[in-house]
C-alpha cells in the first residue's frame, strides 16, 4: 500500500492492526532496555563490558586498514609551536628516579638486554617534528620535539627480527606506566625516541631523558621516561587499556 493511499476499513480490522503495531512497539522498547542492561551486566574485559570491547577490537582491525606509512600528521612552522607545553600526566614519574645512571634497556630477546646511553642515542640521526599533539581528553597543542626516528634506531641496532613482531612494549623505569604499540605505528616515519623539546633537553616532567613521540597515536601512548623497550606478538600491557580505553588509540 502506497503512502497517502486512502481506503475504507472496518473498525475491527483497524483495532486489530493498531493492537499488533503497539504490541510490537512495546516489545521494541523492552528489547532496547534489555540490550542496554545486558551489555552492562556482561563481565568486563579490561574495565569495559565484553560486548563493547569486542567491537572496539574489531574497530582496530577495520581502521588500522586506513593506516599508511605516508599518511603524515600535519607539520607546522616553528612560530606555531607552544612555548609553554602542557603537562598532563605523572604516572610512572616517581621522585626517586636517578637520571645520572639511566640507560635504555633494549630487550632484544628474552635474557638478551642491551643497555644504551643517552649519548648513544643522540649520536644517531636527529629528526625534528612540530605537530598538533592530541590528547585523548579532546584538547590538542602544537608542540616541537626532536629525537631519533624509531625506524632509524631499529636499523642502527639491527632490530630486524624484533620489528617483524606485532608489537613494541615500553615501560617507565619504575614500571608504573606502560604502553603497547602496534609495529606499523612504531615504524611510522614520524615516530621518535625523543630527547628534546623546543630545542632543549626534555624537562623532567616531560619525560627526561627519553620519551616516545608518536603523532599517529593519542598522547597516552607517548610514554615519558622510557626505561625498557621490548617486543612481542601479543599485546604488551597498556596502562590506559587496563582502565577501559581502546588498545589501539590510533589517529
Amino acid at each position, binding site marked *: 500500500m502506497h503512502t497517502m493511499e486512502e481506503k*475504507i476499513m472496518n473498525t475491527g480490522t*483497524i483495532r486489530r492492526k493498531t493492537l499488533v503495531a503497539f504490541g510490537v512497539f512495546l516489545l521494541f522498547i523492552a528489547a*532496547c532496555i534489555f540490550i542496554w542492561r545486558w551489555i552492562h551486566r556482561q563481565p568486563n574485559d579490561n574495565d569495559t563490558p565484553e560486548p563493547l570491547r569486542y567491537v572496539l577490537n574489531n574497530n582496530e582491525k577495520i581502521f588500522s586498514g586506513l593506516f599508511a606509512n605516508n599518511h603524515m600528521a600535519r607539520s607546522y612552522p616553528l612560530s606555531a609551536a607552544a612555548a609553554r607545553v602542557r603537562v598532563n600526566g605523572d604516572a610512572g614519574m616517581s621522585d626517586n628516579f636517578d637520571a645520572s645512571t639511566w640507560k635504555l634497556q633494549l630487550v632484544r630477546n628474552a635474557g638478551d638486554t642491551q643497555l644504551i646511553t643517552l649519548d648513544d642515542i643522540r649520536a644517531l640521526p636527529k629528526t625534528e617534528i612540530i605537530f598538533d599533539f592530541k*590528547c585523548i581528553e*579532546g584538547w590538542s597543542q602544537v608542540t616541537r620535539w626532536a629525537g631519533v626516528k624509531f625506524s632509524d634506531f631499529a636499523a642502527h641496532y639491527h632490530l630486524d627480527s624484533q620489528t617483524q613482531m606485532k608489537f613494541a612494549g615500553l615501560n617507565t623505569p619504575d614500571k608504573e606506566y606502560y604502553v603497547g604499540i602496534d609495529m606499523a605505528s612504531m615504524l611510522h616515519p614520524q615516530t621518535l625516541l625523543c630527547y628534546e623539546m623546543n630545542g632543549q633537553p626534555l624537562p623532567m616532567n616531560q619525560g627526561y631523558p627519553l620519551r616516545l613521540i608518536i*603523532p599517529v597515536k593519542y598522547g597516552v601512548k607517548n610514554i615519558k621516561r622510557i626505561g625498557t623497550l621490548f617486543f612481542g606478538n601479543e599485546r604488551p600491557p597498556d596502562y590506559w587499556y587496563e582502565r577501559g580505553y581502546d588498545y589501539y588509540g590510533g*589517529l
Partner: protein
Amino acid sequence: MAEKKVIQKHPMAIRWFHWINFPVLGVMIWSGLLIYWANDIYRIGWGDKTVLKFFPDSFYKALHITHRLAEGMSLHFVFMWLFAFNGLIYVLYLLFSKEYRLIFPNKKSLKEAWLVILHDLHIKKGLPPQKKYNAAQRLAYTGVIIMGLGSLLTGLAIFKPVQLYWLCTMLGGYDWARIEHFTLTILFCLFFFVHIIQVILAGWNNFAAMIRGFEVHKIKPPAMENEHAEPTPTTAEQ
C-alpha cells in the same frame, strides 16, 4: 459493521528507521557528553563575558557525567556503527522507494515553509496544499538527514585526523571539526525539542501513524450533508 477511512502515511521501513534511530542517537548524544566533559571548553559569549557555558557544573552533577571518558568513548565507538548504518539504509530506502519525493524540498518549499511558520505561529491563517509533509517539514526532515551526514563526517575527522587528513583539512582542521561535531549535536537537540512539541500539538492520530503506519478518519458524509462536514484531514501535520 462500522467503517472508517484509513490513510496510509508511513511505510513500515520508515517507522523502523525512525524508532531505531531514537535510542541510538540517544546513546550517541549521551556518550558524546561523557567524552565532551573531559575537555569542555565551549561557551556562548564574547571576551570574558559568558552567556552560556557548555555545560554548567550543576548539569554534569545532576546527570552524573563526570570522569566517564573511557565509558563514553567505548559506547560512542560501538553505537556509531548503528547510527551510520541505520542512516545509510534509510537514505538508500528513500531513494529506491521514491519516498524521497515526499520528503526532499521542491522548488516551492522555501517560500511555502515561510507560510507554514507564519501559520504555526498563529500569524496567518490557511496553509498551501501539501502531500505527506508541508514545506517546513520537508526542509526540517531533509535538513536533519544532512545533519546526520555532517555528524558522521565531522566525527570521522576527529576519530582519524591523521589517516583521514584530507577529510579533517576539508572541515577546517581538527579543532574546527570538533566544534562542528558539537554544534551539530546541539542542533539535533533543538530539532528534537521542536519535533516533540509539534508531535504533541499534532495529536494522537499523527503520533500513532508513526507506529501503526496509518491515520484513521471518519468517513466523509455524503455530499448532501456537506454543510456539517468536517474538514478533510489531509492537512494533518507531522
